[in-house]
């Protein structure tokens, strides 16, 4: 479905995850973060940047992998994106919900 985020029309699924990464930009990321009550800081963006790089490399993401990435440890990941950090950060990054759960 179509949704207006930061004044732009983007396609999202029923859970609010963007379905076309090409439509993403930083303003959209910011607006999506606000929806999750997160105020973005440079640290947040470093994590988002890492997630997007991994997504472009078609490398599946998991909490464990992020903990070992050297970008952020799991504790800080939870502080930055409380409750369900992988889901929340993926949503902000404009990438699909991680399919690490089968």
């Amino acid at each position: 479905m179509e949704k207006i985020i930061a004044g732009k029309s983007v396609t999202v699924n029923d859970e609010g995850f963007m379905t076309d990464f090409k439509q993403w930009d930083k303003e959209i990321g910011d607006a999506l973060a606000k929806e999750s009550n997160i105020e973005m800081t440079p640290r947040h963006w470093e994590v988002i940047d890492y997630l997007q790089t991994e997504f472009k490399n078609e490398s599946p993401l998991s909490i464990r992998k992020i903990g070992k990435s050297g970008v952020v440890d799991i504790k800080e990941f939870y502080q930055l994106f409380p409750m369900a950090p992988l889901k929340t950060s993926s949503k902000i990054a404009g990438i699909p919900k991680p399919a690490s759960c089968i």
Partner: protein
Amino acid sequence: MMANHLKHHLKKEDWSIVIIDEREEHHYQPGYLFLPFDMYTPDDIIKPIKEFIPKGVELITAKIDRIAPDENLVNMADGTTISYDILIIATGAKIAPEEVEGMKGAEWQKSVFDFYTFEGALALRNKLRDWEGGKLLVHITEMPIKCPVAPLEFTFLADSFFRHKEMRDKVEITFVTPLSGAFTKPKATETLEHLLVDKNIKIESDFAIEHVDNENKTIVDYGGRVLPFDLLVTVPTNKGDAIMERSGFGDDLNYVPTDKATLQSKVKPNIFVIGDASNIPASKAGSVAHFEAEILTTNILHFINGEPLNETFDGHANCFIETGNGKALLIDFNYTHEPVEGTFPFPGVGPLRLLKESRMNHMGKLAFRWVYWNMLLKGTHIPFVSAEMKEAGKQYE
């Protein structure tokens, strides 16, 4: 299973089939679920491997140190080597409680238990026989795990077990999961969460455990959530075999990188992977290995003949879910289709109902032990159940 399949297709003069296994016993792992509740005995679960090795197939009972893919060699722990033309890796997945701080601490097998090993399930049985009640947490550490429905089944069976012992009011059951809901697929989650509510079982979702506090008997997650327990039944992190790490080709959980449609490894073309040992995004369930076996057999024959491989494995899984009180659900799904309601295996007829509790499904689950020992291990095709999932008889929107 693969030896049984391939034996029929490969000429004795041209091929020798060797199975290397470090154990002498084969365990019916789905049986671990029933052991803690005294529904199965150890005899139901364990049989000597020898009984299942087909004629003409050699069994070597010894430990492997590492695989050397460039030399087509398996290096054994005792220093000998075995060469191969084709290697099938079927080393499965096992629990790694040491991955979480404090899990294998002072309370391990006192008030902290797993039921994914024979020893764990047996210790838990002995504990449950005279446990007087309190807070029971059924907990999943992280995904993926073998048989993702097993923790839920354990929860339902525990509810039923304590009811029969007339002590359900003394036990508070909470299902603790790193997922956002009861299961990984939305439709099944809806049904299963409904069952949890009906059975007065609480759910704590999005819980990513950081450590087990043995002193205070609590589990703590990265977000700072603290859950107290009197009895913690946990599914620790699951990992592939450490052989992959020693051989230098496992992923971060020691699973073998594998093509999800052909089951050929990405390590080398003459290495194939079946079951939980692979990193394919299918459920780590026995039914998956069974369906894989048919496609893998075809692909190994194609490989031998220098033909292109079939890219047909669809991630098909078929699982009974015990829901307690002699009832069960049945789910049937694959990479692209989540479990939904319907009938199985005959569209519109059944006799099994998908995603609905019934006694018939429970009978199916119990009968499955016989099917496993007598048909699956021997590679016998199960009538009416195909490797590729059927969409007929299912209610997709």
